[in-house]
């Protein structure tokens, strides 16, 4: 079975279970579907039954212009060489998506990560609010586009202040003995102590 017909098979599965808003073939082996938020669970279930048994990744993309978050589920099949991305947009204010733990139990940690970085709530996941990667984060979720890492860094981490003449050469280093000494040491290090 070649991959073209695989892609067609995927088409059939997804079309029979839910409404596709937008289809975006990425390559011969990858295809993305944008679906409604409410169809995600059904589509994932039917894909899992058809052999896409591994949830490769779950993440989110922030679209502040549309005021939406886009959740991305990437599925992997161990028998057919096709990656499938299922995308669904959710509201940016009070973002929430039902957990897919009943379908893919491994999604537990992906959902916790998404919650930590984007602030998306996953009802159905018992402990999505627990911290996973960031220890004691004290600002808005960092991967939202309205978060300014530069400002955060400047505010939180003291940075080194350089004098104005920093880039100018040190007068002492220009003396010949000093330079010779440095060269000698460099040679010594390179050759292993032999002069």
């Amino acid at each position: 079975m070649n991959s073209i017909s695989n892609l067609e098979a995927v088409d059939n599965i997804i079309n029979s279970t839910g409404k596709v808003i937008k289809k975006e073939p990425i390559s011969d082996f990858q295809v993305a579907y944008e679906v409604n938020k409410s169809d995600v669970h059904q589509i994932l279930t039917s894909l899992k039954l058809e052999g896409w048994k591994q949830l490769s990744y779950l993440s989110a993309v922030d679209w502040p212009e549309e005021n939406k978050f886009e959740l991305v589920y990437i599925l992997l099949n161990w028998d057919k060489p096709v990656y499938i991305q299922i995308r669904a947009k959710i509201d940016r204010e009070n973002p929430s998506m039902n957990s897919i733990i009943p379908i893919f139990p491994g999604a537990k940690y992906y959902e916790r990560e998404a919650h930590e970085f984007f602030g998306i709530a996953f009802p159905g996941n018992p402990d999505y609010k627990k911290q996973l990667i960031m220890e004691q984060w004290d600002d808005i979720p960092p991967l939202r586009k309205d978060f300014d890492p530069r400002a955060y860094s400047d505010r939180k981490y003291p940075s080194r202040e350089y004098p104005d003449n920093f880039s100018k050469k040190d007068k002492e280093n220009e003396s010949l003995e000093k330079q010779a000494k440095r060269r000698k040491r460099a040679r010594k290090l390179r050759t292993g102590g032999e002069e």
Partner: protein
Amino acid sequence: MISTKYTEKKKFNKQEIDRKWWEVGDYFRRNSLWLLMYCTGCCAIELPPSMTSAYDMERLGMGPMATPRQADILLVSGYLSLKTLRRLIYTYEQMSEPRYVVALGSCPINGGIYHDSHPVINQLDQYIPVDTYVAGCMPNPESVLNGFVDLMEGIKNKTANGWKKYHKNYDWYKKNQFDVLGEVVIDDEFHQ
């Protein structure tokens, strides 16, 4: 001509003897520096060439060690995220004294290419004292070795005394650490 002037006999001076012993100890310490490689970032890739036959760190009496208790140098190689820094400080406090810190690369100096990143700190010597910086992104093995020789000279000239500084300015360091890390104790499911 024999001087008739009364000269005071040299007294047993404990401090002086301690200082002499300390200098003897310094000779051993600078010739046998054991590394704890805290490979936090990309600069760690420069360590294998500086240890193996091309540059052979062992001829300076240096070598890798497994745990902080045994090591003399805490070798910070590369950028430090908050999460790593917390563990780095814990590790640093576990080391036996005298202990030295060598930081590789530009990230521990001023943040390097991660200067505007939200989880990466910019300046290591705010949190623990650093004895030698080796600049570069990444520094090549020669500069790494040069840095170690600098540290040895520092030990000889008694300028590499970061561990003393840490004791002296303990409150200042603790305050900085607390500002950026919050409570150092972590309590979640992975640490129980």
